[in-house]
């Protein structure tokens, strides 16, 4: 996990210089991200924007997962529940009340957050492996409910009206909305990591009994972590669902979706702020590559598994974690 003390003995001057480098790189990346829709004038535009949307979505999901699975050390294998519930909340509001998901996305996040509190109240009765089991059971319960609830189309799914944008610019609003979601969720991750709450969460991850003895209200902080980690997946789900224009349970509630979040966090570096971003970019690139060259989805599943096993065995700290351990983490990736 993240060390509380910094490995590099920074003087005030080098610190401010590295701070400046970091911000310049981040602003450059942001500027690139903001101007990417202009690629429309260059060709291959929809593909680039779609990859951008997917990357931002995974950044939002994985950063949120990281609050619970990284900082707190409670691994949720059912976190896509919140992603899917967010999609359905906004989808239902769109179909039945004609409210745009871009408006209702925060509400979807809020519903996901409340569901997170409820899930936390049950699953935090236990810890370790039994907690993981409970999150898987939660996922399957929600899946079965969604798959059989006629009001939302059951397993046939729910068709959404198409977004009312001119067809050549249709991806742009989704792109910016997802970009904003990704940025906000990384900022939330950073904010939590640097707050008293983050300290408490890391103490819980290290040794929950000791944390409790030290006077930390572990129950409260764990619940808050679960709630916060459920919010942005709900928002991202609302936007992603609208961009699909068609919601069906198997697009959201498969455990492989949770597996991707976990895998991205591990590859990037669990418990670091930058890790989920690095992991999301790396894994989306790998997926695009393997879909292009292998096509068949069974192979992708196997690759996901192989990458996960290899990462855990040989690379458990992830990219950011390993680089930091060796003191080679570039300044612009050091967001902790």
């Amino acid at each position, binding site marked *: 996990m993240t060390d509380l003390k910094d490995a590099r003995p920074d003087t005030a001057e080098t610190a401010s210089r590295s701070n400046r480098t970091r911000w310049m790189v981040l602003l450059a990346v942001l500027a690139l991200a903001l101007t990417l829709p202009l690629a429309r004038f260059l060709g291959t535009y929809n593909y680039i924007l779609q990859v951008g949307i997917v990357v931002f979505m995974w950044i939002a999901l994985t950063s949120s997962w990281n609050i619970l699975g990284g900082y707190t*050390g409670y*691994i949720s*294998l059912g976190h896509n529940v919140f992603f899917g519930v967010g999609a359905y909340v906004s989808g239902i509001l769109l179909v039945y009340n004609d409210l745009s998901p871009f408006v209702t996305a925060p509400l979807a996040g809020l519903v996901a957050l409340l569901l997170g509190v409820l899930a936390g109240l*049950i*699953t935090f*009765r*236990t810890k*370790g*492996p*039994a907690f*993981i*089991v*409970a999150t*898987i*059971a*939660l996922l*399957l*319960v929600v899946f*079965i409910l969604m798959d*059989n609830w006629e009001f939302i189309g059951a397993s046939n799914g729910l068709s959404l009206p198409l977004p009312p944008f001119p067809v050549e610019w249709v991806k742009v609003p989704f792109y910016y909305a997802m970009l904003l979601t990704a940025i906000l969720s990384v900022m939330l991750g950073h904010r939590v990591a640097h707050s008293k709450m983050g300290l408490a969460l890391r103490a819980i991850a290290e040794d929950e*009994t000791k944390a409790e003895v030290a006077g930390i209200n572990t129950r409260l902080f764990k619940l808050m972590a679960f709630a916060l980690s459920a919010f942005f997946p709900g928002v991202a789900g609302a936007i992603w669902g609208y961009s699909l224009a068609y919601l069906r349970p198997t697009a959201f509630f498969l*455990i*492989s979706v949770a*597996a991707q979040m*976990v*895998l991205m966090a*591990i590859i990037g570096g669990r418990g670091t702020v930058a890790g989920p971003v690095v992991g999301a970019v790396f894994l989306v690139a790998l997926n695009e590559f393997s879909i292009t060259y292998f096509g*068949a989805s*069974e*192979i*992708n*599943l*196997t*690759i*996901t*598994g*192989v*990458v*996960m*096993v290899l990462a*855990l*065995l040989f690379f*458990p700290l992830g990219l950011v974690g390993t680089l930091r351990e060796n003191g080679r983490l570039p300044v612009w990736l050091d967001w902790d």
Partner: protein
Amino acid sequence: MTAFLQVVILGLLLGGVYALMASGLTLMFGVMRVVNLAHGAFIILGAYFAYYLFEWITLDPFISMILAIPVFFLLGVGLHRLLFPRLEGSHRFGEMTVLLTFGLAFIVEGLMSFFFTGIFRTTNPPYSTEAFIWGSFFVPKGQFFACIASAVLLIGLWAFLKWTRVGSGVRATMQNRDAAQLVGVNVRGVSTFSFGIGMAVAGAAGALISFLFPFFPFRHWQWIAILLSLIVVGGMGSIKGAVVAALVLSVLSSIVTTELSPIWAPLTFFLALFITLIIRPQGLFGKTRRI
């Protein structure tokens, strides 16, 4: 009343098979603190093992079950040797193994989908569609034989743990790993061995599943979720707990199946899990860990 008893009988028959599957999983957890998320995937692999032997040389699934035991035992020993030594001594062994077996489950599922495709399969030995009529009760032959086979395997496992030297080592390790090591139990060897036994049970159970339920690779997630619920309800690491939970919940789920709909049957297991967590988080026969 007769109708109700009929449902209970069907539930108990399936419960025996559930008990077999769950006991392998809980044994692995008890000995090694490994929650094997790939257990369901290996059960499905066992089902394919029986399916193809039946298709190619019409080998009876019960013979396949016996063959699966050594094959899956060796597979388990190999996998354990390959995967787990690197994680030993890890600060977070428990969660690392969960994630590792999670990855393993995807590898097995992906390979099965690739080689065996995603089509629904079942083996059709003659007894899978026949039934005994005993008085006013109807007992499907396939489920009856599968339950007997599960009971024999479970009793064999129990006798092995109770009366052999290796079995005592396994039980000692389940009770207290450090103390077992202190009195001279080869804990690492016992762990590898138990993983093999757990896998052998998974393979054998898979052969039974092959004619009880239609299966395809993706199906293993539902199985593993049900089995994990069973071992948490029974108390993780308690074989007795797993068996009791399997029998009780299987009866409940068959009641749900007939009274409501088969759709909601899996929910029985998950709701039982949540209720257990709320009322008695350590499970029926679980030990509370005191500081």
